[in-house]
């Protein structure tokens, strides 16, 4: 990871940073408290982002459910965000996926629970067991 240089510029020299600085700057500036950004800070942030992408990809692949399987999947990433403390800030944007049928079942169960609570407020004969 020490030599994360990718691509070459017009003169054939290895580029220091591949990600477009203008785009990185737009993202940085969208942060409300930030007034201005020194060019060096911009270059380092871009570089750090590249290192981060590689770190996330490599960690997720290693922890993935199939090293034999020659693919990196969304689930690998989501698991990594959940399990590794260093990537926990990503947990909200990389949520676990569940089957639609399971989600609908969860919704139904929640709805049933709510109904039971409302009923016991009316004081019925109590033959409904709490699940």
């Amino acid at each position, binding site marked *: 990871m020490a030599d994360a240089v990718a691509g070459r510029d017009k003169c054939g020299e290895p580029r220091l940073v591949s990600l477009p600085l203008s*785009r990185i700057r737009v993202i940085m500036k969208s942060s409300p408290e930030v007034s201005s950004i020194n060019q060096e800070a911009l270059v380092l942030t871009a570089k750090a*982002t590249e290192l*981060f992408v590689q770190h996330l990809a490599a960690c997720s692949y290693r922890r993935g459910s199939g090293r034999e399987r020659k693919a990196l999947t969304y689930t690998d990433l*989501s698991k990594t965000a959940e399990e590794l403390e260093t990537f926990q800030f990503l947990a909200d944007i*990389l949520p676990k996926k569940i089957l639609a049928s399971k989600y609908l079942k969860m919704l139904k169960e929640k709805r049933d629970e709510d109904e039971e609570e409302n009923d016991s407020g009316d004081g019925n004969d109590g033959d409904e067991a709490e699940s």
Partner: protein
Amino acid sequence: MAERPEDLNLPNAVITRIIKEALPDGVNISKEARSAISRAASVFVLYATSCANNFAMKGKRKTLNASDVLSAMEEMEFQRFVTPLKEALEAYRREQKGKKEASEQKKKDKDKKTDAEEQDKSRDEDNEEDEERLEEEEQNEEEEVDN
């Protein structure tokens, strides 16, 4: 400059290439995974910026500088990035110094009409912030960077 939603995303082709460099040859990346990593990268930039900004504010500065970014990496527990980032910073400074010397040389060769060349150095910058940042850069280069 108004931000369109797509401007907060990073280009897919570059992201894909960076991912591939980190994985063994022949490993595929699902489209969903690639898109997720791209989003994660944007979130990382925001998190790093916010963190770096805290250091700038502590130092009573309004401009984020290189040492703020390095401090942010430590704070975020990405110490592993610090050494490669310092190397990149040195390489960048050498490059900038080289460009500066080259253009100063041209000034000597021609007359003072070559002031416009200073603008060519940084293609990625917004023009309105150009001069402000160039002045601050020179100021910052003189400041000690924490090691």
